[in-house]
């Protein structure tokens, strides 16, 4: 049973195709990362899966409910943390939690217990009575994660959960998501354009670009699928460079070796493990190793391999010249 299934999902805004035939199957209990640059179609996909917008064509099921025909079922089964901060600034954290719990028909006692539990887990219990306007960005994000989980959903969907947060707050959010995932056996779908976030959290990663899924696998699987390896640079002295090159090339995980004056530039699998072995080997030949650098293969390399370019910026949204942004959304598209 899949928690989320989509088949050939298409969304068009006039001539612009935001989603171009997306097919996905996300197993229950998986943490699935949707990686792509701004404007790639991540938010559009999330909005279709959360019943906020309708697809132009194709099928999508969330927790077994069709997003077009069984919207109420979808809405009850999912918890969502939208990309923008969406908690009312002039309410308190406690009030927001309680009001949302009431939207899901929870009773008073259950609401109180669940709110208390979640606010404690996200570290906001002491500040629960304060207006959200007084919270920092990280606190608001933690509150929104708690808010998304208030009704014990089976699927948690997060759209760019750490965008705009400082590295420390980002790390806190990651740890929270890990904790909730283990505790509640949640299926998590998260979109991000931060490589390290997808790498840290996801069991599976799909790369989406221009509305299409261009690659889908585990993080390790994706890395293996591309020809690039880690790049190690060893600066050595007291040895003939041709001999050094020969010795290094003989190591099983080394692909190719180039020499640049006193530096060996080595293409290597799993470079971090190979460093001590290669250094020992060179020392055994009386060489002096004066400097070692390692550039590990990242998801960024994977992304560049599949999309042909690094993460790009979002194209500007068109708005009406006469009316600015103050018009129904479709007029500004």
């Amino acid at each position: 049973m899949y928690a989320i299934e989509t088949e050939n999902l298409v969304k068009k805004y006039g001539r612009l195709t935001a989603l171009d035939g997306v097919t996905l199957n996300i197993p229950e209990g998986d943490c699935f990362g949707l990686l792509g640059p701004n404007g790639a179609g991540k938010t559009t996909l999330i909005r279709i899966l959360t019943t906020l917008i309708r697809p132009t064509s194709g099928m999508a099921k969330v927790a077994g409910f069709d997003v077009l025909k069984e919207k109420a079922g979808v809405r009850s089964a999912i918890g969502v943390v939208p990309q923008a901060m969406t908690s009312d600034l002039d309410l308190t954290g406690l009030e927001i939690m309680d009001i949302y719990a009431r939207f899901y028909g929870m009773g008073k006692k259950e609401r109180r217990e669940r709110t208390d539990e979640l606010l404690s887990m996200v570290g906001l219990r002491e500040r629960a009575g304060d207006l959200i306007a007084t919270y920092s960005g990280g606190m608001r994000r933690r509150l929104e994660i708690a808010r998304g989980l208030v009704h014990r959903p089976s699927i948690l969907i997060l759209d760019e959960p750490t965008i705009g947060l400082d590295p420390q707050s980002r790390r806190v959010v990651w740890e929270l998501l890990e904790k909730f995932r283990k505790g509640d056996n949640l299926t998590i779908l998260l979109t991000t354009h931060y490589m390290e976030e997808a790498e840290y959290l996801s069991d599976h990663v799909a790369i989406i670009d221009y509305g299409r899924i261009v690659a889908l696998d585990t993080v390790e699987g994706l890395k293996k699928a591309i020809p690039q390896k880690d790049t190690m640079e060893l600066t050595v002295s007291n040895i003939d460079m041709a001999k050094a090159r020969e010795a290094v090339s003989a190591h099983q995980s080394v692909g190719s070796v180039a020499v640049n004056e006193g530096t060996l530039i080595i293409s290597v699998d799993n470079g971090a493990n190979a460093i001590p072995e290669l250094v020992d080997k060179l020392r055994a030949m009386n060489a002096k190793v004066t400097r070692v650098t390692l550039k590990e293969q990242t998801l960024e390399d994977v992304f560049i391999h599949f999309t042909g370019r690094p993460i790009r910026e979002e194209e500007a949204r068109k708005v009406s010249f006469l009316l600015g942004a103050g018009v129904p959304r479709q007029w500004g598209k």
Partner: protein
Amino acid sequence: MNRFKAIFERDLRKFIRNPLVVAMSVLMPVIYLVILGNSFQGELKRLPVAVVDQDNGPGAEGVMERLSALEAGPRTVEVIKVSSQGFAMEGLREGVFKGVVIIPPGFSRDLARGSLAEIGLFLDNAETIAAATVQSAIARAVSEPGMEFVGIREERAGARLRPIEIYRKIDYDQTLIPGVVIMAIFLGAMTTGAFNIVMDRFLGVEESYFLTPLTKSDIVVGLVASGLLITTIIAVVVLFFSSLISGIYLWRLLTVDGFLLMLAVIVLSTLGLQGLMFVIMGRLNHPRIVGILGGFMNVIFFFPSGAIYPTESFPAWLKAFAVVNPETYSVHALRALMFKGAGFGAVKGDMAFLAVFAVLAVIAGTAAFKREL
């Protein structure tokens, strides 16, 4: 029901946490009453009129006496005696005088001979209301007995009119109270209910509500209900302060039934406007557009409602709009209940219109509201 109550409560809490909005919602209509009631009085007073006496005879003295009586009595004009006609005309052009009376040489002689004696009256007709008032006041003054040969006189004989007011004396600012209450309702409807949708959209907050099992009617009815409660309270507070300021002390005049009927009119008027706001604003996403629309809608609903000027005097096209304008019925009903001691029979037509309008507006507002992005 729980979901609807949650929306209702959320909105009330948010409104109360903005005390400046609460204060302005009450203050603005009351200030309107104070400013309009004192600047745009029913009868004009102390209009400066220059008098140039080139006759210096007994006839001219008679005219002067009557003008002085006008100045001392109803105080319509303030007479300033000027020796130079050129100076007086200059003052008229500059707006210092609203009119210039010229008593020409030979005026007393013509009067004594019984031939037509004329005085000249120059008016600043760029200010039409002031000009008409000066003309009628001066005409009345000089056409009194003893001046029968003065040329400006318009009626030589006629029955003297003695107006009998059928209700207790009502000052101009007091007559504005129904309009001011309607304005409070309009402002309340503008700043609660549908406006919260616009703000939620502008701040990107609505998305999180649409992600929950809330239905379209939970959202619309919840917001309309909270807006209705807030606006009704504001309207009653404005009614109280308006009565206090204008000295009409409604609580001494109104019966309990009368007050309840007024409350019903306020509730129905609010409900209609709340629904209408959802129709108009249900899909907007910028508060600036609401600001512009608010000013525009206030003009088109308020002025043709009869709150300031009787609808009977409107041209046909404006009268046609007044017929479908819900504020016309609100003003009419409130005026009848407030000043005439009317009962349900006198306002049932107004209330029927307001009730039908309210139901249709809320249905249309719910239909117009889009529960998707």
